[in-house]
């Protein structure tokens, strides 16, 4: 991978044909997750029984198509990690549906259900059991799910390691003997061991050295191409996914606010928040700074979501209607969804401001 460029990459590498003919491998509708925080006795007396409710996810709509890399981008606290946890089934949603290949996913997943959606974690130091050798880790999964006959387990483990760019002598080593990037490759091999068709990657490169990030990103691209995996790639930074993903979904305060193909999103963002994210990517050229608009303030507390559009307190284009109407995710251009009532005017507004 090269440094992020000012101009988004033209066209997508493969899968350039519309993917709409396939049913999505994963689709979530109206997904919500809220936590009721236990309040102290004192505050309960003062506020007369008001419960503090944290809305981590609030009506999330998203679909992952077969064989695509979908990037999920948002600030810390936007709920993207919560969404990832719900998708793999390690946390239960409060409301909403998850469909896997068009059929509803059971709330309590069996061994085979959980096998199909695997996860790569952010921190490769916490995601590998320090007491298991790489070989033992893979063997356990291969045997438990009867992926290959017992005699071929070692062969299969070697194949998995080669797949992620590691040598076979890693089999007998412990995780502590590897660097961060190598550990992340091992974590990917573990996820692939059970032959999933969906990979959820929760900021898999943000804990890695910048020099290693690119090679791990390349690995995801290779795996998608060679294995036909569908990948949901969670990131807090658009620059990371610019060259990797087919589509990008932007998340703000527990909701998806814009979804579009990557090139389209960079060229023609239809949500002010997306535009702010794009402008926040560091650029090499000098003149661009004047064009950028920067977000002010912190995202509002998920305990107290603003009325109307949840972005309105930070939005430079907010009008009165934005403070009363909660916009829904609508098609604003072919294969381009945005949750902004001024989505259609946004292109001209952005130009007018400069």
């Amino acid at each position, binding site marked *: 991978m090269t440094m992020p460029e000012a101009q988004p990459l033209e066209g997508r590498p493969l899968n350039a044909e519309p993917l709409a003919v396939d049913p999505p491998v994963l689709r979530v509708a109206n997904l919500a997750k809220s936590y009721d925080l236990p309040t102290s006795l004192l505050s309960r007396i003062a506020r007369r029984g008001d419960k503090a409710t944290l809305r981590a996810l609030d009506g999330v709509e998203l679909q992952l198509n077969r064989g695509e890399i979908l990037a999920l981008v948002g600030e810390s606290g936007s709920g993207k990690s919560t969404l990832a946890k719900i998708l*793999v*089934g*390690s946390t239960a949603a409060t409301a909403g549906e998850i469909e896997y290949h068009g059929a509803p996913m059971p709330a309590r997943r*069996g*061994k*085979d259900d*959980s*096998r199909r*959606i*695997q*996860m790569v*974690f*952010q*921190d490769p130091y*916490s*995601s*590998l*059991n*320090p*007491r*298991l050798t790489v070989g033992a880790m893979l063997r*356990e*999964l291969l045997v*438990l*799910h009867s992926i290959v006959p017992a005699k071929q387990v070692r062969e299969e483990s070697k194949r998995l390691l080669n797949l992620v*760019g*590691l*040598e076979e*002598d*890693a089999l007998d*080593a*412990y995780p*502590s*003997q*590897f*660097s961060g990037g*190598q550990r992340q490759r091992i*974590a990917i091999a*573990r*996820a692939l061991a*059970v032959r999933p068709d969906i990979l959820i990657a929760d900021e898999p490169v943000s804990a890695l050295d910048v020099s290693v990030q690119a*090679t791990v990103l*390349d690995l995801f691209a*290779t795996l998608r191409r060679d294995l036909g995996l569908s990948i949901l790639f969670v990131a807090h930074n658009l620059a990371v996914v610019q060259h990797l993903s087919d589509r990008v979904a932007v998340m703000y305060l527990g909701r998806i606010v814009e979804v579009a193909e990557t090139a389209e999103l960079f060229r023609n963002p239809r949500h002010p928040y997306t535009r702010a994210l794009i402008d926040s990517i560091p650029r090499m050229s000098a003149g661009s700074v004047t064009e950028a608009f920067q977000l002010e303030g912190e995202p509002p507390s998920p305990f107290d979501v603003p009325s109307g559009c949840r972005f309105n307190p930070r939005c430079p284009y907010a009008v009165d209607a934005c403070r009363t109407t909660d916009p829904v995710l609508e098609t604003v251009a072919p294969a381009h969804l945005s949750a902004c009532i001024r989505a259609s005017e946004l292109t001209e507004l952005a130009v007018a401001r400069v």
Partner: protein
Amino acid sequence: MMSPAELLNARLQQRRALRSRSIKPWYRNGALMAGIVIVGALVLIAVLAPLLAPYDPIAQDLRNTLASPSAEHWLGTDKFGRDILSRLIWGAQVDLRVGFLAVLIPFVFGSVLGAIAGYFGGWLDTILMRIVDVFFAFPFYVMVIVLVFIFGSGEASIYLAIAAVSWVSYAKIVRGEVLVAKKQDYVTAARLGGMSHGRILVKHIGPNVLSQAIIYGMSDIVMDIMAIVTLGYLGLGIAPPTAEWGSMINDGQEFITTQWQQATIPGLMVVVASLGLSFLGDGLSDLLSPERRK
């Protein structure tokens, strides 16, 4: 995809990393080796007591009481004319056996309960931890002495009394470690891998949390030997005439001004045993924590 040159480079890097981060062999660990040598020597003495001890440890010779060290009795004799060296050697057997066994029972019991409470949480955890708090509220020695009083003196009641009091420490240690371990991503990954709670607890969490309990167990053996010695000193320990370091210190203190070795040498044995076990615990903590290995 990587070019052949990059691939080669990555492979070389991996080789180098594997070599440079290779684990320090256990025999290069100073504390561990010191512990093994000291504890090993004591265990050897205890096991070989029938061969090593020159005299019967409980045979009295009332014509030769309170003898000073001599060629026949290297450390002299006590007030009943029993050979002190022989009693010291046989005493190692009793004290080490009681020490190890008094740790084994609460270790197993406490660790299992603590692990279950920590992993599953909920009301089970709440009830168990309140019980633990009650036990912690009483001083160790007070509880042990009261229980030995109730059960009557003797080896079995010492095991029971110590086990009844000290399982709470293991439960608390293991529970705390499990609470940390179960939040680690590798546990989530194991769940996503379709593994059952039992398998995760035994195979993935267990090995990561037991090291702390094992290390604590080593120092607990020291504590228990001290407890036995204390009980022996208070006359509540192993019933006489069985040779045991605590009762030897107790017997010898009467003559501390004339025959200092009678109480001092068994006391030194307690110190040496404690030191050896502490070294062993320290060495094991290095060995059992791969993330801390350099």
